[in-house]
């Protein structure tokens, strides 16, 4: 019963990743694609959480935190690239 609930959650998370993937491919502007990639990262975090419950292990909890940090830094870097053109600035004016 509980495994069936977890499988339904996995399928729904996979569907929402596919919807985000549609927006990442189709999105008319660059910001739509960045937001879609951020959403895919967050959905992957949820997917890892459900899979680690399904496999009854604690070995993936560090991967959740690492993926959260990397999604944040990647989104900030893309936002800087869209706004200024340069990701890391030599001297702030």
């Amino acid at each position, binding site marked *: 019963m509980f495994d069936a609930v977890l499988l339904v959650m996995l399928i729904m998370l996979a569907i929402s990743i596919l919807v985000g993937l549609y927006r990442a491919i189709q999105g008319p502007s660059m910001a739509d694609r960045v937001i879609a990639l951020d959403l895919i990262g967050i959905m992957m975090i949820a997917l890892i959480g459900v899979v680690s419950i399904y496999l009854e292990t604690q070995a993936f909890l*560090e991967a959740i935190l690492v993926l959260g940090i990397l999604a*944040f830094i990647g989104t900030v870097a893309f936002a800087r690239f869209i706004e200024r053109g340069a990701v*890391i600035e030599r001297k702030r*004016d």
Partner: protein
Amino acid sequence: MKTNDVILQTVTTVTVFIILTFAAYLFFAGHHDPGGGFIGGLMIASALILLYLAFDIELIHKGLPFDYKLLMGVGMALSLLTGIGAIVLQHPFLSHTFEYVDFPFFGEIELATSVLFELGVTLAVVGATLTIILSISEDV
């Protein structure tokens, strides 16, 4: 128009310490749990990259005056010295040992010499990553 990213800078000053704490946890957990020197070094590097993103290179270099190429060399030398130390003590190259030591406040803690090797790996990873990224962003 002068841009103002006070939200990014405030979030960064809080988040960097969380990421560095997580990196230290990953580094010390690597002996018995998932983690280790490589991913710990990558997390330290990503905390520093977040600082470079929110502020600029010259401001961070004023606060953290590290030569990352020198850091990479120091890390590789430290990893090599743990191997040579085994030769000095009449053991094969890169033999590692561990010991359980009683500390007054923390209780019994396992001290392993492979932590020193992992520390060298961590320094090399941080140095290599930041050397690559800062030299790519040099001429913008």
